[in-house]
């Protein structure tokens, strides 16, 4: 591993100061499950690593004012064992649960998964589908932004120098609102998603969809919120025609590449298949509320 400097600030302000004042390439360290792999392979050669885990509150989950507030460096394992979060947003927990292995989930964080900005990130589609807000600390103080505004391209974020994410604010679900996340991989575990799909729906008493968000991963340079897919669901029950329209909308939104994990044709087809399957689960869950 190439040599690197390491800092572990013990407050948000200290972290902002270190990040803003650093010269050379600086990387934030949360769980480290992406960063260390990239360091090891030589893909990145940072001068400084800033470990945020000593900042109070950066690890932990609390409920406040109609939101789940999740510290940016909270490991996935903590998300899966939080009963209330799992009940409210099973899709988000599923997504985080699918990142790598049990060992990876012992460290991997929502912030890391989001800011690593891989289009195939497993926690991101459901997080975006739930209309999550991220709280960012920086030289200008704290600001809030929609989770979907963070990734601007593979490996690139909209965070300015000196900025880092401190919290995720996930709105609590409304009555008869629930989500689901599915991904397709060649094995049963351990693979990067060939396609990922997060669906968040709200139903009325009769089972008709009144609100929806459909988010696809690994089919474009960033995660895609598929408006047409949501439109295909809103105002409808989940019947054959709706599923077909949903499938078509999902496929149409794909701008994937062919790489060692999947071809353009295959990813596009699977996007449609997953959209149907994920929506089916989300509808079932929402109806059961």
């Amino acid at each position, binding site marked *: 591993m190439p*040599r690197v400097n390491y800092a572990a600030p013990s407050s948000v302000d200290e972290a902002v100061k270190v990040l803003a004042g650093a010269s050379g390439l600086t990387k934030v360290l949360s769980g480290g499950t992406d960063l260390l*792999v990239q360091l090891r392979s030589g893909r990145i050669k940072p001068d400084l690593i800033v*470990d945020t885990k000593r900042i109070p509150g950066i690890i932990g989950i609390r409920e406040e004012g109609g939101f789940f507030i999740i510290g940016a460096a909270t490991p996935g394992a903590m998300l899966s064992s939080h009963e209330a979060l799992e009940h409210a947003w099973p899709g988000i927990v599923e997504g985080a649960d699918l990142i*790598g*292995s*049990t060992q990876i989930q012992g*460290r991997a964080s929502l912030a890391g998964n989001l800011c690593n900005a891989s289009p195939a990130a497993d926690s991101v589609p459901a997080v975006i589908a739930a209309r999550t807000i991220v709280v960012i600390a920086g030289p200008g103080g704290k600001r809030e932004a929609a989770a979907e505004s963070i990734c601007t391209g593979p490996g690139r974020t909209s965070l300015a120098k000196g900025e880092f994410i401190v919290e995720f604010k996930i709105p609590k679900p409304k009555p008869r609102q629930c989500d689901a996340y599915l991904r397709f991989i060649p094995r049963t575990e351990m693979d990067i998603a060939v396609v990922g799909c997060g669906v968040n729906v709200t139903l009325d008493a009769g089972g008709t969809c009144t609100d929806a968000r459909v988010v696809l991963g690994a089919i474009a340079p960033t995660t895609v919120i598929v408006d047409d897919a949501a439109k295909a669901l809103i105002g409808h029950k989940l019947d054959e025609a709706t599923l077909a329209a949903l499938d078509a909308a999902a496929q149409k939104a794909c701008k994937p590449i062919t790489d060692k994990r999947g071809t353009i044709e295959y990813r596009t087809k699977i996007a449609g298949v997953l959209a149907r399957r994920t929506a089916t689960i989300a509808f079932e869950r929402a109806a059961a509320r």
Partner: protein
Amino acid sequence: MSKHHVTTTINGEPTEYLCEAQQTMLDVLRDELGLTGSKEGCSSGDCGACTIILDGNIVCSCLMLGVEAEGHSIQTIEGIANGDTLHPVQQKFLEHAALQCGFCTPGLIVAAKALLDTTLNPTEEEARYWLAGNLCRCTGYDKVLRAVMDAASVMRAEAGQ
């Protein structure tokens, strides 16, 4: 480049070491502390041979920097047995011949022990998914799963369940 001084707890014992920032926890365990039970199979978090328990969660020590251990509690394969008494998982691995070359065995045992710390009643499927991060190329996992399920049953009996 100066080294970092780290104070941590490993296998119940207060431990101090010096390390460079880029040394992983696995490097530190193996090269600085002589704890070579944790193995390097891939250094990218894909094989689980380096599995340790950090504050109760299993993690890949190859994906953690040595400096990050400051103030935490770590358990490695060397700390799974209780002195001379093997943990039921270890004993069952031997009885079921759940190891052939033995290289993945430390990681698997640590991971399995952590599973049984969370539940004494896993289904075979739950155990398989829990252990999916531990690659084994020799056994095909069959005897590994039998050993884990048998250890669970022994531990249930001991707990009076």
